[in-house]
């Protein structure tokens, strides 16, 4: 239940605003001028807000499509991302969003058509390059699909450009619109996974790993391409056993021919972001791990990162080709 929905005056009559309002009949609606009046202001407490976030419906003015950071990708020469939303309904303790915004309220940008135009523009400008778009870098791309309908809206664009890839990265068990439409070769349904035992401690409010594997399997059988994102790799007692159990379970539950790619990424935070997150959750067991600061990044020791990455890669190679495995950093 969302108690309060703030609505920018500029989009108060937008059909998408009206449609979202209908889904929250018991909420209080408050008109605002700009979403920045509420979101990311100084003197807000992310942790307290996260207990009961409000929703902000807004108009995005610019920056619809951006280049991904270095090291983020699955093989294309150029990678871009777009976020129709800020913040996530889940509360994962390793997530960078905890340190990204001072506010935990959700912002949904309702002017999807401006995203469409920017995506088409980027495609036109990169006609000779292999490009991949990532949906939902600043949010979970599908977790609020039943409210936003963003994936349903954006998919037809990519039907027009079969050579351009789009990845929807999620921890949700959202099946629609994907179970109701014909699978598209250039769409990757990517799922972030960590071992069950770690997930029950770190992935707050997130569907269980077994439920996620079930949905991945259903979508794979329906014909959708699957991305597996073991990112971040989490260290701890018995990590080898825990990751072996997870990877074996995943590779034995999903038709292997449906797997598009696997990526492995170490746990890492920009130093300033880590400081903010640690201040929010100083008693979090994850931060009792041996973490080091190196070049402005907080991460495990390089030897731990390497050992975990090689271990998971070798397990994956029993099932998939080396060309399908990517390392994020």
């Amino acid at each position, binding site marked *: 239940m969302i*108690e309060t929905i703030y609505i920018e005056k500029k989009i108060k009559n937008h059909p998408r605003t009206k449609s979202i309002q209908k889904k929250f009949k018991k909420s209080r609606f408050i008109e605002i001028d700009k979403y920045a009046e509420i979101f990311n202001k100084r003197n807000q*407490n992310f942790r307290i807000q996260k*207990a009961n976030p409000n929703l902000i419906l807004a108009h995005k003015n610019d920056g619809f499509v951006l280049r991904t950071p270095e090291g983020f990708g699955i093989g294309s020469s150029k990678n871009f991302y777009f976020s129709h939303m800020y913040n996530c309904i889940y509360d994962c303790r390793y997530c960078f969003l905890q340190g990204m915004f001072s506010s935990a309220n959700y912002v949904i940008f309702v002017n999807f058509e401006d995203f469409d135009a920017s995506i088409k523009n980027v495609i036109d400008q990169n006609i000779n390059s292999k490009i991949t778009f990532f949906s939902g870098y600043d949010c979970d791309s599908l977790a609020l699909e039943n409210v936003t309908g963003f994936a349903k809206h954006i998919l037809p664009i990519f039907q027009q450009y079969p050579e351009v890839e789009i990845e929807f990265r999620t921890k949700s068990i959202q099946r629609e619109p994907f179970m109701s439409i014909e699978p598209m070769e250039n769409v990757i349904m990517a799922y972030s996974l960590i071992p069950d*035992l770690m997930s029950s401690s770190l992935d707050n409010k997130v569907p269980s790993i077994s439920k996620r594997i079930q949905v991945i399997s259903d979508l794979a059988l329906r014909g959708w391409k699957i991305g597996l994102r073991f990112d971040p790799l989490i260290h*701890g007692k018995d990590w080898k056993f825990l990751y072996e159990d997870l990877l074996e379970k995943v590779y034995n539950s999903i038709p292997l021919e449906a797997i598009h790619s696997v990526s492995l990424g170490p746990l890492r935070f920009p130093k300033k972001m880590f400081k903010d997150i640690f201040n929010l959750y100083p*008693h979090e067991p994850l931060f*009792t791990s041996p973490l080091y600061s190196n070049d402005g990044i907080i991460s495990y020791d390089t030897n731990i990162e390497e050992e975990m990455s090689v271990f998971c890669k070798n397990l994956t190679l029993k099932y998939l080709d080396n060309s399908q495995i990517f390392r994020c950093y």
Partner: protein
Amino acid sequence: MNKMSVRWVIALKEEAKVILDYYEMALINKKTLYPIFKNIEETHWLILSGIGRHNSAAATSYLYTISNASKWTSWINIGIAGSGKGDYGNIYLVDKIFNQNSFITYPATMPKSNLPKMSLLTTDIPITNYSSKELIDMEGSAFFDIASKLTSKEFICIMKIISDGPENNIKQLTKLRIIELLKLNLTKIAQVVSYYENLSENENQIKERPEIFFKISSNWHFSVTQSSQLENLLRRLKVFCDNKEIMDLIKQCKSSSSVINSLNNKIKTNKVNWSDI
């Protein structure tokens, strides 16, 4: 030990009477610019600001200094308000504040409350043309403006009880009636305040320095940078070590840097046992 902390800023003594009685606050034995009350535990403090924005702003700031409020103190403003929309005698949480100088802000109201919410217009002169205004007072915006400089928005609460409106002439509002209006809403007020007491106490538990920090600091001399390192290390270690284990680790240390190194080494070898969490 109770570490919660609540500060009240209230304009009139009639508005404060029921609160002072319920939370057992008494006038402090000290000469102050505004009348200030506190309970024996010094967890609740209340200041009578008088009417108007300037008084409210000054009193909020003054109470902060006098009562040694922390970053996780909850701040509450409660009082009567005029309204062109709400129900007479009912209490409302404020979720939007504006004044005649175009100041607009949006308090983060308490979650999961059964109390209805309304917007508040703070004016410099009494208004009797209620028209379509939800709530009208003379202090709220200034209180919020100052309080939000002292703590994060989630710790600030404004509650208003409708005392006058188109059907209820302000001229008929007596001191006794104001006390009565507060009394009628006391249960609801106490429920809201209980949320803010817990919020403050929980934040204190999360943010306060571990007790062992003071013990260690008194035995070795730490620079400012080292103190910060020590505090962070102790917060991390406290998740999986008890105080005795920590003291055993460092009892042979000759210097503050060797204390830091010993604690760092303990972290370096830690493997989180996810099955214990």
